[in-house]
């Protein structure tokens, strides 16, 4: 598959931005007082959301894993909105929903505290697409852990039965909290799961931006053209602990170091350098541009007011 240079560069910009954004959020969290209740870092896993977003339009529906929600900037949110959402600020001053993570007009229906419950909610957007007969699609990225849950299965059954325009994607970062995916899934290839529903399944190296882009594109195009649902499994690795502070006693020695070597960012940069699409100088310039953007966005985001008590109470449907 030939990928246009523009697309390659867009993905590089987004990949680098996502890395710096993740670092920035971590910095904000560690500084304290930001309003961020906790942090589950997604470092090293950004290639999947970035490659997915590179195939979507603003009016497509997208769920990322909670760990990588901040990559939603690649779906069209501003960095300010992302940082503000993470820090429980109120974005309505920006003319947006309080949290732009919940904004159906941007194809975002938020994530829930109970992992897996979003999948059938998002499937509902695929029903709207079917009823409206548009060429939108819905992509649901979920973790290897939450993929075990009942509603995920029910969604796959229903998607298959109704031939809905949805791509299920499992971001297999090898762990759900402290539990290794290998202890849960006994089949060689997790994408074999698609066979249970009679739709296509495919596994891809989720730390390889270009490979992921190509595989995801194939399945999204298929869904957009009425081909129905499918399952893509992206293999990657959770380089951080489950949460900040996790002692990670479950991790075999050396495993992390092996995976750091497969970090998608330098890998992709090396590839683009080799392809001559990018120079070291471009990278350096982009780094400084992003740095400035990040500082600006942080400042604007943290200047926004916290979600207000009075407004929150207005969401009541009866007496308080």
């Amino acid at each position, binding site marked *: 598959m030939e990928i246009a240079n523009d697309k390659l560069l867009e993905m590089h910009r987004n990949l680098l931005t996502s890395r710096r954004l993740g670092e920035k959020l971590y910095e904000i969290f560690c500084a304290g007082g930001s309003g961020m209740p906790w942090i589950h870092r997604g470092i090293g896993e950004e290639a999947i959301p970035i490659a997915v977003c590179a195939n979507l339009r603003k009016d497509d529906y997208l769920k990322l894993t909670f760990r990588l929600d901040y990559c939603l900037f690649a779906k069209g949110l501003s960095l300010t909105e992302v940082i503000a959402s993470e820090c429980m600020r109120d974005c309505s001053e920006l003319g947006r929903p309080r949290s732009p993570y919940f904004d159906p007009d941007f194809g975002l229906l938020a994530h829930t505290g109970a992992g897996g419950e979003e999948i*059938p*909610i998002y499937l509902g957007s695929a029903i709207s697409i079917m*009823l409206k007969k548009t060429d939108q699609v819905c992509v649901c990225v979920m973790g290897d852990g939450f993929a075990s849950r009942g509603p995920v299965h029910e969604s796959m059954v229903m998607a298959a039965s109704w031939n809905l325009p949805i791509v299920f994607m499992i971001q297999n970062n090898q762990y759900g909290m402290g539990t290794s995916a290998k202890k849960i899934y006994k089949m060689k290839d997790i994408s074999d799961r698609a066979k249970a529903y009679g739709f296509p399944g495919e596994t891809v190296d989720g730390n390889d931006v270009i490979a992921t882009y190509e595989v995801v594109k194939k399945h999204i195009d298929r869904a957009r053209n009425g081909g129905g649902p499918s399952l893509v499994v992206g293999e990657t690795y959770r380089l951080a602990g489950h949460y900040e502070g996790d002692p990670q006693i479950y991790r075999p020695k050396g495993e992390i170091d092996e995976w750091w070597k497969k970090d998608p960012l330098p890998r992709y940069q090396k590839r683009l350098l080799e392809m001559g699409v990018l120079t070291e100088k471009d990278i350096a310039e982009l780094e400084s541009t992003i740095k400035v953007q990040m500082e600006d966005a942080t400042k604007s985001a943290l200047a926004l007011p916290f*979600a207000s008590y009075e407004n*929150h109470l207005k*969401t009541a*449907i009866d007496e308080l």
Partner: protein
Amino acid sequence: MAEQTQMLNYVSAIGAAIREEMQRDKTVAMWGEDLVSMRGAYGENPGMYEEFGDRIMDTPIVEQAILATGMGAALTGTRAIVSIMTTGFLAIAFDGLFMEVGGLRQEFGYTGPMPLVVFCRTGVGGGFGAHHCASIESTLMHSPGLKIVMPSTPYDAKGLMKTAIRDDDPVVFLAHGPVYFRGKQEIPAEEYLIPFGKADVKKEGTDVTIVVYAGMVRKALAAAETLSKENGISAEVLDLRTLVPLDIDAIVTSVKKTGRLLIAHEAMKRGGAAGEIAMRFTEAAPDVAKTLKTPVRRLGAKNVALPRSAELERMLIPNDKDVVAIVKEMMA
């Protein structure tokens, strides 16, 4: 005048409301188990598929997905009606209903519309066991964002269903199964809507206020008749029609007049809606509460599971005789 009314039973009244709203608004769509293949799990949707085609759809047996897809569709341009066969199966989709449908928008401060009706058969009767007869409405009252409709008559059912479909917030519409095909009522041919949060005085009275909903309404009316004929007691029967929002003003107004309050439901007593309603009453009108002629009483099913036996079931849930007996105690 005759052509301006129709005689409809409960389930046809609901069907008529859905049909009218689907005709009126092309974004209304409905799905659930066997709505097409069996014309509704209880045969309640005749002719819908013929008229609306793929806006009415059969699902696999996946209650969690049925419920949650309703929410997702409602957020993305569909005015969704999802059908869950019985409240027992609503328990299966409890997380999606209670937490996501009832709270996720609020959790994220999203104020846009989410027009979803969760349509579900409820009510004790037939001896089909706990899942087919469960009454879990009180548990749903504890969810922050669910409106709960429980009509007792065909007339109310039609007007409330139309309101439910037009509402931009999620509504749980609990239809009373045991009266689906039991008796017809005169229904205006012209359109009417019944607002949420307005209780209906089904019978006026001066001695005691009996607050009821759904299946207990009929029993309370029968009891009121007995009380009047045999005991000279004048009972007012107030049909809540919606549990959330709750028409607390109507309760207070009635109790101001009668000085006595009985709350009765077919749901199990412990944790049932009666406790909540009594507390709301006391909070809303402490002065009236202080001058009650007798403490607030309630009736509910015995605190045990419903077995697969129509006979045991009948003995476990309150009937009109229980209402009569407790009212007589309250008057003593």
